[in-house]
């Protein structure tokens, strides 16, 4: 084939690649732009301080949902962070065996299981046996999503810690577990913290696992054995309602949610970039 034609063909294909990228960015800005325009215009103070009101009555907010999302995240964190980190430690520090391989493999697969399935699972496991929807169930569901993310982050950052550091500690007479706690984990901490922040960003945006675990509520509640509102489920209910003012609240709440999630992601990115010395 003629070189000039090949060259032109090459340019066209490269152009298509550039176009793909532009398309991706275009959608990102479209979605975020929408969120800004529709979300900001419905944003007001009462959203942050008031409880939901029935349709037709002006005002009303999602304050309880914001608190609910935080509470659910805290429950998930309390369960998920230690398990996630410890499993990561097991894989890297104790795992020269099949079990470690399987943990890593299962954890990877678990992170790809649709979250709605985790919702169904927790429903069967907790909601049915407690005979009611509860914040605890929602938190547990979110923790199951969180664990593989943190395990993976821990695994990757601990692998970056050079062996010479562990040996230095052993040579000083430190037992393995203290070496891990005092030297290995702190040395890998920035990656782990990054992973934890991404995990929070992820679970705060989750809706499906909460639909039939923590359900929703229009009241203030901090009780673990009661249903609780969350930003995402509130958005879903309001968005799919026929009322215009509720849909507006859904937009404003989406804006709040997106800001929280993007902030956490950017923070995580920033934290990951902090200088590591290895």
């Amino acid at each position: 084939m003629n070189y000039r034609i090949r060259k032109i063909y090459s340019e066209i294909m490269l152009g298509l690649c550039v176009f793909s990228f532009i398309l991706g960015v275009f959608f990102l800005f479209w979605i975020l732009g929408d969120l800004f325009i529709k979300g900001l215009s419905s944003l007001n103070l009462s959203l942050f301080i008031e409880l939901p009101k029935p349709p037709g009555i002006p005002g009303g907010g999602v304050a309880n949902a914001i608190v609910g999302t935080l509470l659910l995240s805290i429950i998930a964190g309390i369960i998920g962070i230690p398990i996630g980190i410890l499993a990561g430690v097991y894989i890297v520090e104790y795992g020269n065996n099949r079990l470690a391989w399987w943990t890593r493999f299962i954890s990877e697969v678990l992170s790809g299981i649709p979250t709605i399935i985790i919702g169904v699972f927790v429903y069967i496991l907790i909601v049915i046996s407690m005979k009611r929807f509860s914040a605890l169930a929602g938190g547990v569901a979110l923790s199951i999503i969180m664990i593989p993310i943190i395990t993976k982050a821990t695994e990757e950052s601990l692998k970056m810690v050079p062996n010479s550091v562990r040996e230095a500690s052993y040579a000083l007479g430190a037992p393995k577990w203290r070496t891990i706690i005092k030297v290995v984990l702190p040395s890998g901490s920035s990656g782990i913290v990054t992973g934890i922040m991404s995990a929070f960003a992820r679970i705060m945006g989750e809706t499906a696992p909460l639909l039939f675990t923590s359900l929703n509520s229009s009241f203030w509640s901090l009780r673990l054995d009661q249903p609780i509102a969350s930003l995402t489920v509130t958005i879903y209910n309001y968005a799919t309602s026929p009322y215009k003012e509720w849909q507006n609240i859904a937009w404003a709440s989406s804006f709040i949610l997106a800001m929280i999630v993007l902030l956490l992601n950017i923070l995580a990115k920033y934290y990951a970039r902090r200088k590591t010395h290895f």
Partner: protein
Amino acid sequence: MQEEKHIFKEEKNLEKLRTENLNAWFSSLQILKNINISIKKNTLTAIIGPSGCGKTTLLRCFNRLHELTPGARIEGKVFLEDLNIYDNNLDPVLIRRRIGMVFQRPNLFYNMNIYENVISGYILNKRKISKEELDNIVEKSLRLAGIWDEVKDRLKNHPSELSGGQQQRVCIARALAVEPEVLLMDEPTSALDPISTYKIEDTIKTLKDHVTIIIVTHNMQQAARISDEIIFMYMGEVIEVGRTSEIFTNPKKKLTEDYITGRFG
């Protein structure tokens, strides 16, 4: 030989470390073959030999680091005074507190500042000690390692701010801070410039009054400058052991002579 040994015995009569039919493997590869050596208290012994002959492995058998490598295995005995460190009922951790080690490359803890690094032996072993005492230990150890003046004003700084040679000397201070009876050093100066090397050699020479030191080195001049005794290894075996002056002037074995005169290795 007999006579000399006798004289020597009177000066430094106590045996500190002894191996008995020590063999070591990486998986199926035998690295150390039937090592029987004895190291006397408060002497400075240099292990020399061509690359890959098993010097590092031998050193790591002395504080039970060898067995931490996956697939690694040892047979035989190593006595610290009259305690077999490979006794089944013995926690290796207890041995490592008595036998310090300095590695080939500086490996300070980057999650701690310089001060914390020096006392890390105490942090890691949860030994509770008063602040003043710790301050004293830090100063004493850093002075012993010959680096006090260089770091005394930046003890709270991150260790990566130090040069490689300075870091290595802080590593020595860290090992000394827990007051080990034996100090193992694996080519501690191989990555360093001549000035740092001399400083560390000075440090090592002053140390041998309180500590039994075993040092691996590739540098013949260094071995000649600092050591009292020499162990020459070749392909996993100890070929010759003797006083430094003896080995350098009048080696018993052809192999030793070839090696120290630089004919191979």
